[in-house]
């Protein structure tokens, strides 16, 4: 468990949403997450992958295992070169959506994961990093 596990996955089609879920499910299960946390992480990944597909058309998901201060976790990074998010604060509000989503993607993902960091530049792209720590 000491060697870091990592990988990346390109998102270019709608079917990649399902594939990304599989990749994340395998990674989270291998790290020892329980079924409820695996479901949380996979669902968060599904939302973030779909965001990339819908708003940016394509992007990359990186995943890596974390080992910090005797804590084990999983980090997922979603990167795209899409239009970016104009109003990050607004994007984090429940019920706000500029697309055809339900507007619960980002705030919902925040509740499912332990940490969420978003960096976005309009016209350049968006990077979303989420982490979940294994409870002892």
């Amino acid at each position: 468990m000491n060697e870091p596990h990592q990988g990346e996955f390109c998102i270019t089609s709608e079917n990649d949403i399902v594939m990304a879920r599989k990749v994340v499910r395998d990674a989270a299960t291998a790290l020892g997450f329980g079924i409820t946390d695996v479901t949380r992480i996979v669902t968060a990944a599904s939302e973030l992958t779909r965001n990339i597909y819908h708003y940016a058309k394509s992007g990359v998901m990186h995943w890596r295992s974390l080992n910090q201060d005797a804590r084990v976790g999983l980090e997922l990074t979603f990167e795209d070169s899409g239009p970016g998010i104009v109003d990050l604060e607004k994007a984090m509000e429940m019920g706000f959506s500029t697309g055809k989503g339900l507007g619960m993607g980002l705030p919902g993902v925040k509740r499912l994961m332990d940490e969420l960091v978003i960096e976005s530049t309009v016209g350049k792209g968006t990077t979303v990093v989420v982490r979940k720590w294994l409870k002892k």
Partner: protein
Amino acid sequence: MALESISVIKLRDLLLVTVPPDPDDETISALQERVLQAMALYEARGLVLDISTVQTLDSFFARTVAETVQMVGLMGGRTVLAGMCASVAVTATQLGLTVGNALTALDVDRALDLLNAAPSGARCV
């Protein structure tokens, strides 16, 4: 692959649909279409959506289910969501998902009981 993986089964005057474990968006959309066609074709008065094997219920899935419930309701039918597993229920709630006016049941048996106990013509929309 998507279309073959959905089966809409007519059970007396009800429809039973088993949702595959990890459906893509296309499959979920196709499911909605098939259900509505079957509602009209069989003059069904109710729908049981068996989601017991579903591992990931995300916002797209939930929205499509909520829409389907609404549409089935407009056609005079009631929908029961059956068999949601605990981890999916926890995740869906934290994500803030709702499934519209669907009735829910622990499993398909109870869903059928629920629909058969309902007076005919009962609407939930």
